């Protein structure tokens, strides 16, 4: 591990925080207990929001209706696209304790994640990777939610959660193995409580639910978070995971990144109503959050995770965001969507908006940004070097790990393969 990775430097700590206080459970005592607070928000000056004084403790009255009921409410948003901090009595407490360091940390996470992602895209173009699924545009959704988790929580990603992996201290170069074609995942899920990437859409939501059922059985207060996309919401497995999570009151947060597209299909091909509303019919709350607002995502995810810890069961969080790039490097989005859509979303860029806010409220100075730029470059370099050095696996690896306890046929085939390989050596040797 080299110095440029947050993950490496401050393992299992809040982004940029030296003390890690924002990650403690104790803090949840401040949080409102209601299922979901009202989402009405009012604008305050960036200046005011930037003061360290925690927002006044809100008196949130328990609402009978979970969030996401009835007519579509506004997004939960704490930071406008223009970088202004807006007040939200319900969710402010979840970010109230963030220090300047924390805020810079979130910014740094997003910048480095984007840099890593760009590097991977470049490596694919250079033929070093077979494929890459870019998270461009979804940095806030991933860093905000990833930073909301505790080390003992467990994360079940799709194939695009590079930012969440970053928050979980997974060495980013580890993520590249499967895209390079040297393994199908390969990291140890238990060393960072970050499960392997799952490609079969939706499957992991059931694993997350089962894992959460196990957490509850153990009497632990950890929580589980399952990532999936807007397209995935149509899969039967996702619906079944909602049912199981609800029936067993499992401590799981369903985190749907609605990036508006499932390859070439817009969200309207999956649903006629906002996705967060899906939850209610399964008996738990759903909330839509501005997925390009890292503070809002952090707050909403913390709220949901803490509900889970308190034994209040599952939550669905819909992070409303946008896939700025192609679906993967194999895709060509120009075939099915207009540039204006992308342009409109560029104005809501998660990194730009936090930068405006940081600058306007003097949370960061030029030095910080310059240093980060350098760090970013060095991350890119490291990723490049590591990937290029990644060796092809030994052919005999094919015969490893199909079974934990062995299998006679595998032994037989391995032996046949060895004999076959040896036949060349013999010839060559002869």
């Amino acid at each position, binding site marked *: 591990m080299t110095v440029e990775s947050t993950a490496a430097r401050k393992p299992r700590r809040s982004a940029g925080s030296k003390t890690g206080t924002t990650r403690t459970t104790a803090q949840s005592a401040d949080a409102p207990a209601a299922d979901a607070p009202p989402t009405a928000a009012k604008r305050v000056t960036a200046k005011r929001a930037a003061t360290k004084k925690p927002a006044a403790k809100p008196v949130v009255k328990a609402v009978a209706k979970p969030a996401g009921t009835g007519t579509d409410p506004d997004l939960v948003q704490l930071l406008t696209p223009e970088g202004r901090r807006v007040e939200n009595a319900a969710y402010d407490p979840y970010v109230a304790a963030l220090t300047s360091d924390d805020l810079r940390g979130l910014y740094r996470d997003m910048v480095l994640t984007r840099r890593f992602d760009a590097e991977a895209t470049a490596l694919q173009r250079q033929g070093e990777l077979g494929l890459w699924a870019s998270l461009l545009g979804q940095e806030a959704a991933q860093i905000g939610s990833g930073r909301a988790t505790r080390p003992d929580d467990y994360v079940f990603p799709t194939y695009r959660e590079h930012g969440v992996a970053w928050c979980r201290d997974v060495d980013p170069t580890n993520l590249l193995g499967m895209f390079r074609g040297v*393994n*199908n995942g*390969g990291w140890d899920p238990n060393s960072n409580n970050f499960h392997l990437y799952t490609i079969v859409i939706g499957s992991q939501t*059931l694993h997350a*639910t089962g*894992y959460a059922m196990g957490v509850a059985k153990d009497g632990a207060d950890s929580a589980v978070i399952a990532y999936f996309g807007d397209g995935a919401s149509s899969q039967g497995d996702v619906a079944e995971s909602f049912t199981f999570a609800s029936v067993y009151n499992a401590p799981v947060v369903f985190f749907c990144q609605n990036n508006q597209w499932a390859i070439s299909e817009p969200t309207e091909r999956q649903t006629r109503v906002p996705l967060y509303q899906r939850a209610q019919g399964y008996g738990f709350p759903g909330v839509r959050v501005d997925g390009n607002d890292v503070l809002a995502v952090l707050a909403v995810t913390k709220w949901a995770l803490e509900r889970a810890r308190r034994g209040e069961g599952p939550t669905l969080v819909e992070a409303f965001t946008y896939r700025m790039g192609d679906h993967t490097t194999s895709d060509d989005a120009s075939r099915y969507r207009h540039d204006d859509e992308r342009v409109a979303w560029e104005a809501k860029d998660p990194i730009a908006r936090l930068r405006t806010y940081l600058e306007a409220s003097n949370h960061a100075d030029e030095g910080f940004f310059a240093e980060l730029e350098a760090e970013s470059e060095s991350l890119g370099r490291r990723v490049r070097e590591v990937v290029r050095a990644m060796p092809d696996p030994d052919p005999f690896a094919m015969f490893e790990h*199909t079974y934990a*306890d062995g299998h*006679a046929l595998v032994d037989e085939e391995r032996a046949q393969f060895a004999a076959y390989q040896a036949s060349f050596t013999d010839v060559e040797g002869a």
Partner: protein
Amino acid sequence: MTMAAETVTSRTVTSQSMALAKAINESLRKALESDPKVLIMGEDVGKLGGVFRVTDGLQKDFGEDRVIDTPLAESGIVGTAIGLALRGYRPVVEIQFDGFVFPAYDQIVTQLAKMHARALGKIKLPIVIRIPYGGGIGAVEHHSESPEALFAHVAGLKVVSPANASDAYWMMQQAIQSNDPVIFFEPKRRYWDKAEVDVEAIPGPLHKAKVVREGTDLTLVAYGPMVKLCLEVAGVAAEEGRSLEVLDLRSVSPLDFDTVQASVEKTRHLVVVHEAPVFFGSGAEIAARITERCFYHLEAPVLRVGGYHAPYPPARLEDEYLPSLDRVLDAVDRSLAY
């Protein structure tokens, strides 16, 4: 390379006569008692004790937290069992009938079978999927199928099927202790068949076939519900002066070709019997591999007796569809006529 079948060490004092279903029940009970991580999951496994009463009394004694009635969703059952296994549990999942495993097929094939390899061995999936299977009980559609080939073809799964109460007891113990996913096919029409079960015995390896009757003229290979039939066939054939050796495979993946090979090298004739359709069934794999191993020994091609290439028929036709004494004898005659 070839080995004779192992005999289970039997101490009469701990042995008792038990129906096959009861033997599995006892085996599950023992597993629940000895390992707090073992869970039972499925539809109606709780108060009802399962539609075949295989889990009878377990929820009462171990609680709803260990013996779990699940929502009616097989993909959900297997998918959450995977999550529980990742958390350190050892779920034993019941699929109510053979024909209802298919909603879970995706989770089994793309997730359960591959996750250990995907993680380069870093995580284990010790899950047993119990499936009452096969016909002969006069049931309606989807309640009599034998889909074992659809699992054996998939690497990462182990596939076994006991033929009698004693094996049912011990193989279930071993399947639960296995660190690999095991698809455990229970021959439902033998649920009520009794046999001596010695709960203190030292069982042989899970994936080893057994010679259940020795013979010299022809080898009959079967597993699960068809072993009993093959023993009957051997009995009838003996009256006709033919000495048939009967092998109980017990495991379909891995498949103990060594034991089959040893027998065929002796008898030079092989007939494989299973309820599943012949086309792309276990018999094909056995025929292909044994022919390769015993090319110069075989005096006749390996013959297969099994279901036809048709959906499992309505109950009033199942006796025609399933391998029967006569159909197996017919194959024996044809083999020996070469």
